[in-house]
C-alpha cells in the first residue's frame, strides 16, 4: 500500500525510483493499452482508408463496424494454425515472437509523461533504436523459416531496407541529441525523459530549433520511420502485388496476427520516438507562451472535452441511423457507447476541476498525468493518421529506388544536417 501511494507525488519514473509495484502496473497498462490501441487502429485504418477510397468500410459487425476488430481477432484466434511441412518448425514458431518482443520491449523507455514511464534509462534513445532494430530479426527468420521463395525475397528486401534506413534514422536522431546539449553546462543526454526536459528548458520543440535544421532532421526521421515499419510507400517486404504477402505469406491465424500486432506496435513506438525527439513529448502546446494557471486549466480540460466530443459524434451516429426495427440493437449499442465515451470525458473533467480546486496530492498528480498522456498520445495519433494517409495516396517504391533514396538522398542530407547543427550549436 505504501508503495502504491508513494508513487503519487514522486518526481521519478517507477523504474528509477525502484518502485517495482508501479513498474509492473505500468508494464501491464502498456501491454494492454498497446493491444487495445492496435485493435482500435485496425478499425480506424479500415474506416479511414475506406473513406479515402469512396467506400464506407466495415458496417455490419456492431454499429459502424465498431466491433469488427474484435470479430477479426476472434476469427484469427480460432483459425487453423498451419505450419508448412517443409518449414523449419522451431524458427517458424519463434519468428513472430521475436518481432513482437522487440516491438513491445521498446515501450519500457517511452515517456508518456515525466513520471509516466516504466523507467528512464541513461541510454534511452539508444536502447530504443537498438531494440527496435531487433524487429528485423523476426522478419528475416520468418522469411527464411517458411522455406518458400516469396517470403525469402521479402525477408531479404526487408533486412536490406531496415538496415539501410536505420543509418539515416540514427543520424537524424543524433542531430536531435546534439540539440539537447545546448544548455548552460553543455552536457547532452540520451535519456528519453532528458530529451523532453531539454526541450522544456530551452523553451522550444526541437522541430523548430535552428529552423530549418530541426525540421529537416525531423522529416528525414519521419521518412525513415515509415521505411522502418514497412508501411506504404515502403512496404516492399510485404508488397502484395509482387510477393503475395512477402515474409508472412506462409503464416496464418494467430501467428499472422502476432506479426500484425508487432507491426502496429512498432508504428506506435517509432511515432513515439518522433514525438519525444522533436515534438516536445508530453508537453502541451505553448507551455511557455501561454503560461499561467488559467491556461493550464484550459489545456487540462482538453482530454475530457475530446472524449465528450467523441461521445457526441457517436450520438450523432445514433440520430442518423435509420429508424427501422432492424437497427434497434445497433442504435442502443451505439448509444451506450456514446454515453460511455461522454461519461469518461465527464470523469476526466471532474478530475481536472477537482485538481484545480483541491490540494490533494493524488488527484493533482492524476490530473497532471492524464494531461501528459493525452498530449503525448494525441501527437502520436497524428502520425498514425499520416501512416494511413500515405497508404491511401502513394504507389509503392521499387527496391533499387528505395535503396537510392535511403543511401543517396537521406543519408547525405542527414549527415549534412548533423554537421551544420554541430557548427551552429558551437557558434551559438
Amino acid at each position, binding site marked *: 500500500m505504501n508503495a502504491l501511494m508513494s508513487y503519487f507525488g514522486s518526481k521519478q519514473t517507477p523504474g528509477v525510483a525502484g518502485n517495482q509495484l508501479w513498474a509492473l502496473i505500468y508494464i501491464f497498462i502498456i501491454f494492454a493499452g498497446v493491444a487495445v490501441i492496435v485493435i482500435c487502429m485496425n478499425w480506424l485504418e479500415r474506416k479511414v*482508408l475506406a473513406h*479515402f*477510397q*469512396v*467506400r464506407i468500410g466495415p458496417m455490419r459487425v456492431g454499429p459502424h463496424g465498431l466491433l469488427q476488430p474484435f470479430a477479426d481477432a476472434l476469427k484469427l484466434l480460432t483459425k487453423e494454425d498451419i505450419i508448412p511441412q517443409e518449414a523449419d518448425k522451431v524458427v517458424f514458431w519463434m519468428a513472430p515472437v521475436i518481432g513482437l518482443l522487440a516491438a513491445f520491449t521498446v515501450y519500457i523507455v517511452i515517456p508518456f509523461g515525466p513520471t509516466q514511464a516504466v523507467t528512464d534509462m541513461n541510454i534511452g534513445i539508444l536502447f530504443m533504436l537498438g531494440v527496435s532494430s531487433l524487429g528485423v530479426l523476426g522478419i528475416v527468420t520468418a522469411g527464411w523459416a517458411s522455406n518458400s*521463395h*516469396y517470403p*525469402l*525475397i521479402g525477408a*531479404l*528486401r526487408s533486412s536490406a531496407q531496415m538496415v539501410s534506413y536505420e543509418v539515416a534514422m540514427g543520424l537524424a536522431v543524433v542531430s536531435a541529441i546534439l540539440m539537447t546539449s545546448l544548455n548552460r553546462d553543455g552536457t547532452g543526454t540520451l535519456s528519453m525523459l532528458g530529451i523532453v526536459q531539454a526541450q522544456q528548458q530551452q523553451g522550444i520543440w526541437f522541430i523548430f530549433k535552428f529552423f530549418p535544421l530541426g525540421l529537416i532532421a525531423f522529416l528525414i526521421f519521419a521518412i525513415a520511420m515509415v521505411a522502418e515499419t514497412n508501411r*506504404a*510507400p515502403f*512496404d*516492399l517486404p510485404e*508488397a*502484395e*502485388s*509482387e*510477393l*503475395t504477402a512477402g515474409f508472412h505469406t506462409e503464416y496464418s491465424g494467430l501467428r499472422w496476427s502476432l506479426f500484425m500486432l508487432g507491426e502496429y506496435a512498432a508504428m506506435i513506438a517509432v511515432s513515439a520516438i518522433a514525438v519525444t525527439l522533436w515534438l516536445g513529448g508530453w508537453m502541451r502546446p505553448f507551455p511557455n507562451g501561454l503560461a499561467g494557471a488559467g491556461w493550464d486549466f484550459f489545456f487540462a480540460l482538453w482530454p475530457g472535452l475530446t472524449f465528450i466530443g467523441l461521445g457526441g459524434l457517436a450520438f450523432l451516429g445514433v440520430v442518423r441511423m435509420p429508424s427501422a426495427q432492424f437497427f434497434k440493437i445497433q442504435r442502443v449499442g451505439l448509444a451506450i457507447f456514446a454515453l460511455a465515451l461522454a461519461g469518461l470525458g465527464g470523469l476526466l473533467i471532474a478530475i481536472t476541476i477537482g485538481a484545480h480546486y483541491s490540494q490533494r496530492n493524488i488527484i493533482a498528480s492524476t490530473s497532471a498525468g492524464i494531461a501528459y498522456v493525452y498530449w503525448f498520445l494525441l501527437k502520436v495519433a497524428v502520425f498514425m493518421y499520416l501512416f494511413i494517409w500515405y*497508404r*491511401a*495516396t*502513394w*504507389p*509503392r*517504391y*521499387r*527496391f*533499387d*529506388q528505395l535503396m537510392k533514396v535511403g543511401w543517396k538522398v537521406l543519408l547525405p542530407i542527414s549527415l549534412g544536417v548533423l554537421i551544420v547543427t554541430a557548427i551552429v550549436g558551437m557558434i551559438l
Partner: protein
Amino acid sequence: MNDRTDALSNLDLETPEKPYLDSNELIINMGPQHPATHGVLRVILKLDGEKVLGTECVIGYLHRGVEKIAENRTYTMFNPYVDRMDYVAAVSNGLGYCQAVEKLLNVEAPPRANYIRVILTELNRIASHQLWLGTHALDIGAMTPLFYTFRDREEILKIFEKYCGARLTTHAFRIGGCQYETYAGFEKDVKNFLAFFPPKIDEYEELLTGNRIWIERTKNVGVISAKDAIAFGVTGPVLRASGVKWDIRKAQPYANYADFDFEIPIGQNGDTYDRYIVRMIEMRQSLRIIEQAINGIPEGPIMAKVPKVIKPPVGEIYHSIEAPKGELGYFIVSDGSTQPYRVRVRPPSFVNLQALDIMVRGMLVADVVAVIGTLDIVLGEVDR
C-alpha cells in the same frame, strides 16, 4: 504435375559471368494464383537476387476451346461465345465477329446501327481502360485509383445494362446490325456520362500523372522500341506508346469510324509511363467520338436484311478491329453450311503477352508486375 520441371528445363537462358559469391539463381513461380497476374497467368521467373534473368509464360489455364466450339455451332449461336473471351471488352469482341460475318455475307449494317455500335464500343473502350488503370495502379501499389475507376465504370455498365440487360458479357450486337433499339433516355444517359466523366479522368491523373513515385516506377520501365514492337506483333496502345501511329480505326476504318474526327495519341519512349499516358488520352478521345456520334445519330432501321438461316458462300475472310487491347482479328472459313468451318481469333492479349520477356529482362521483380499490368492482358482472351 510434372510440367513444372519440364518448363524449367526448357528455360535455358544465358547466365551472366559468375559472381564472386556462389549464390544460386532463384527460380520463382509467379502464379497461376498470384495477386498481380490478372487471372491465371503463370510466369516462371529466373532471378539473380531481384534482377530478372529471364521469364517463361505458362498459359492455357483458362483454355475453353472457343475455336472448336465455333465449328460446332451455327454462326448465330456462336455470337455470344465471343463475349467470353475478352470479358472486360465484350462489346468490341461482338462487333468484330458480327462485322466479319457480315463481310462474309456481303451485307452492310444500316447507318443507325453503326452509330449505336460505335457509341457502345467506345464506351466499352473507356470501361476497359478504366479497369486496366485501376488494376495497374494497384499492382504498382496505389490502392485508391482502383476504387475511383470502379465507381465510374459503374456508370458505363449501367448504360449497357439498360441497353441489353447484361453488364459484362453484353452480347449487344447481332449479325447484320443491332437487336435492340436504343431505350428511352439512352441519349440522355450517354450525354450525362459525357459531362460526368472528364473531371473524373482529371481526378485519376491528379493522383498519378505527376506523382513522383508513379513516374519513377513507370518511366523507363518495360521499354519496347518501335522495331521490336512491330517484330513481336504488338498492337494497340502498347504499339502506339512506342511511337507507331497506327490504329485500325484510322488506318482501315470499319463501322463508320471514318465519319468521326479524333486523334491517335502516340508516345515516344515505349515505356510504361507512355503507355499510361496514351491510354489516358485515348479515354478522352473516345469521349470525343461518343459526343460526335450521339449528336449525329440518324433515324432509320437498325437491322440489315439478313436471311433467317445464315449460310455464307464458300470462302474465307479476315476482319480485324481496334479492340481496347489491340488488333482483334477474326479469320472465318466458310464451307457454305450453317456452321463455320473454322473460326480463328487473333487475340491481342495473347500476342502482346509474348513481348513480356524482352520487356522485363534485366529489370527487377517489381517491374514484371508493372509490365504485366501495362500490357493490359485478359487471360480469358489469351487462353480462349
